């Protein structure tokens, strides 16, 4: 069974190996042993209630329990921006109007914003190309919401997710070229690298301090605002199905959208329910929708996907699934029942 679980100190080697699969482009997950070990340690301290609020963050790995293969990662930051400020642009509306001149013009203004300070953030998702088959990416991403639903009081009221912005066919960010590049004179990739190495707030300090009129920028830059990178479109769809929405916050470098919502409104938080484990046999059916199932352990959280639904307060797991999720007959699990497929 493929499960998503909290990272363990022994996972560092596997993480370094996995990070080698990322190739160029993705900069948040590099085969840097020191950085990865620190991330694992930070997650351990967070679980042990031994982390300061500004550094609290969870880190999960996806493991194929049949082989022990670690094939994906994802994370949750508990409260962003408490150490280095968390920068975004807020796309605000201003109306320039004069009745006497017969003018009424709606314009968009980019304001530097720290609005999302203190939000939880889902981040750092990477899935090995070897596992990009139906449902696996969804499990990896949504397991975080199962964790949040189970440990609701460990999180603030709201949550966000930053998505990579639009890049053209030459791999250039039109927004960066129209805005950021003038303030740094470095290439986007360099800025992105610095940004992912804890320098984002240094970079942000160089950005325009006054609001920027979006309408005065080149069309290509205007059109990139709030638009998701081609490769990130499925992730956006998944997050939107979960209830996250674009609320006019975008990344300061590539203008990629920030999706956000109240944690109480997350589909998983609203719809998942606790059930008791029943172990037995089940015949697999072709193409059946899968429910998410997780245990309720903080230190050894595990989440997987399997067919079935809660019946009379119980959920049927095979013996293999129960072992993979580390639960026994009668234990409590959290279940998000599969939605019937849209017709």
């Amino acid at each position, binding site marked *: 069974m493929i499960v998503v679980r909290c990272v363990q100190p022994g996972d560092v080697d596997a993480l370094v190996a996995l990070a080698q699969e990322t190739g160029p482009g993705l900069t948040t997950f590099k085969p840097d042993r020191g950085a990865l070990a620190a991330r694992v340690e930070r997650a351990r301290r967070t679980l042990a209630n031994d982390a300061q609020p500004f550094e609290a963050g969870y880190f999960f790995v996806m493991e194929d329990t049949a082989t022990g293969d670690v094939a994906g990662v994802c994370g949750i930051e508990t409260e962003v921006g408490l150490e280095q400020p968390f920068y975004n642009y807020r796309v605000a509306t201003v109306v320039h109007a004069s009745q*006497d*001149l017969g003018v009424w*013009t709606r314009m968009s203004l980019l304001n530097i914003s720290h609005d999302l300070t203190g939000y939880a953030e889902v981040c750092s998702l990477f899935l090995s190309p070897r596992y990009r088959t139906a449902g696996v990416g969804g499990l990896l991403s949504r397991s975080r919401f199962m964790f949040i639903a189970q440990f609701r009081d460990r999180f603030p009221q709201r949550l966000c997710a930053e998505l990579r912005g639009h890049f053209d066919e030459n791999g250039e960010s039109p927004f960066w070229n129209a805005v950021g590049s003038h*303030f740094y004179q470095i290439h986007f990739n360099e800025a992105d690298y610095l940004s992912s190495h804890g320098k984002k707030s240094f970079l942000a300090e160089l950005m325009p301090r006054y609001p920027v009129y979006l309408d005065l920028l080149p069309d290509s830059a205007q059109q990139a605002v709030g638009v998701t990178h081609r490769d990130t479109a499925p992730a956006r769809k998944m997050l939107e199905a979960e209830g996250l929405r674009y609320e006019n916050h975008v990344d300061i470098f590539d203008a990629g959208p920030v999706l956000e919502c109240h944690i109480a409104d997350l589909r998983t938080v609203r719809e998942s329910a606790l059930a008791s484990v029943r172990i037995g046999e089940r015949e697999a059916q072709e193409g059946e929708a899968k429910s998410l199932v997780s245990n309720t352990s903080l230190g050894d959280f595990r989440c997987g996907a399997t067919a079935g639904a809660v019946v009379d307060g119980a959920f049927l797991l095979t013996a293999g699934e129960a072992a993979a999720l580390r639960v026994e007959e009668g234990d409590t699990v959290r279940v998000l029942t599969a939605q019937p497929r849209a017709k």
Partner: protein
Amino acid sequence: MLFVRPARLSDLDELERMARAAQPVLHSLPRDRRTLETRVALSEDSFRAEVDFPGEEFYLFVMEDAKTGTLCGTSSIVASAGYSEPFYAFRNDALIHASRELKVNRKIHALTMSHELTGKSRLTGFYIDPSLRTPEGEAAAHLLSRARMMYVAANRKRFSSEVFSLMLGVTDDAGVSPFWEAVGRKFFGRDFEQVDMESGGRSRTFIAEVMPTYPLYVPLLPGEAQRVLGEPNRRTLLAYDIHLEEGFEPDRFVDIFDAGPVLTIAVDKSASASSGEWRPVRDGAGGNGAAHLVAVGGAHEFRCVVAELTGTRADGAALSADARGALGVAEKDTVRCVPLHQASGELQ
């Protein structure tokens, strides 16, 4: 002999003729006769008034051909720009974006709506007859433009200690301003002329209030708009040079609509105030000397011509009968003389 003097109500016919010929339409020289009359009346009142500090006065000068009595140009001074409302300009500020950690230190320019010019005296309304827009007419253009500073220098109390002048910004062959296209049009969605017309002759301030309230980062503007920032229109290069001769300098200000340069000067340092001298009038044939602006009169009466003078102050001002006639002076009267060109001026 051309001379500059205050406009009179009796000039209305001639002024109307010029107003109709002026292209583009000048706010100081409206085409509507009644509006024009109001302007001239305001000017007459202004010249007549006893003034201790600049207020809502408006001074309209005309250039007259003494021989024919026809008028061939206008120029004016607004004693206090934006007297009852703010006068807007973009101030081009340099902002330093620096980071010690990233070893970056960048100077970024941004245009901020500024009211700083409000209350300062402003030269405006320059219109010269097309027949004088020739190399031979250059002295006439100097006279018409600079007579204003001769008046300012002689009537310091009536004006602010710093004076400015707005130059027409760059437009393409079709008369389109790239700056307006990049900025103003985004806010109005229309041609500037159209907005100007629809404002019903109200002030530019009125229009300015629809313009951006936040600073505009210059590097984020289209290249074409950046290139014309603070650049004078080809058609105003002579006017630009004339201002520089007087001592005006481009400042940090540009026009909010077409980004034309705003030239400023401290009156103390202007040629009219600093290199002028009083000379007694002598009978002379004129010619052969260096061209000078020669002015007479105080607040209420004022006349100015260009004449060639030789020698120093002690030699007096040898003026031809024509010049004396135009100025309305006789021998032994004193006139104020300022060299038309600065001796060391690299602009000559």
